[in-house]
């Protein structure tokens, strides 16, 4: 570990704000794109499944 203790780790020699905001922003962006990808996928599958079930019963 490059830091002596946790406080140092979070402060990063007064650069902590920058480093952590970058990591925070990136995590949020990646999470958002993953979430939108998976939810769209799920939604399409459900729509198609419902449509096929409806077609079958008719």
């Amino acid at each position, binding site marked *: 570990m*490059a830091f002596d203790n946790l406080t140092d780790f979070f402060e990063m020699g007064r650069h902590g704000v*920058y480093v952590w905001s970058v990591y925070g922003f990136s995590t949020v962006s990646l999470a958002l*794109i993953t979430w939108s990808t998976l939810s769209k996928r799920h939604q399409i599958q459900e729509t198609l*499944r419902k449509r096929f079930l409806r077609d079958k019963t008719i």
Partner: protein
Amino acid sequence: MSWTWFHKLGSPKWFFHWSKSLALPLFGFGCICLLFGLVWGVAFAPEDYQQGNSFRIIYIHVPAAILAQSCYLALGLSGLVFLVWQMKIAPIFIKAVAPVGAVMALMALVSGAIWGKPTWGTWWVWDARLTSVLVLFLLYMGIIALQNSLNDVTLANKAVAVISVVGLINLPIIKYSVEWWNTLHQGATFTLTEKPAMPAEMWVPLLISTIGLYCLVAGLALWRMQTEILIREHRSNWVKQEVMKDGL
């Protein structure tokens, strides 16, 4: 040499089956790799003697920038593949990857700007690299906007392929012109390029997180392409079987 594999690859059905079991492992491996690289970089890599701890932003900034460019390269190439061979999977790829590429460019831009504050003292410098990432982001937005405004699928496929190819040809010129312009305007500023040669403890985590992000983006791209294939091919029988069989 037989070209059947090439045309097979171009068929959405074959691609769907082939990629179905691949997306999750790729994504998962990418996540783990990225996490490993980032933790190593942020907690264990030594401090940069010039920039201090702010240099740890590199573990996000550089992979995102590399991915943004690679995604555009891939878009341009698949645009070319579509215009030349009419491969059906190519426009699906473009539609699926463009938003991911835009997110990567945005991440590179934001991290670059935040990195700029402690390094240069301002949030934004018209540095050649930042400017060309900005242009790249605008190109992505253009592709997405075009894709969303054209309702006719056939037209949208062609249009997006055309603009990707033109972008691919233009990107080197844009980059060169911006770099050239920058030297005229700026003189010598700090650049991110002129770092002292990095020790291995610094670049190995960078390499790992880059590989991780590559895999993560590939997984995302496969998922998005599968979704798009389902939408486009929803009338065909194999989609029906596929959807009814299990939850995928």
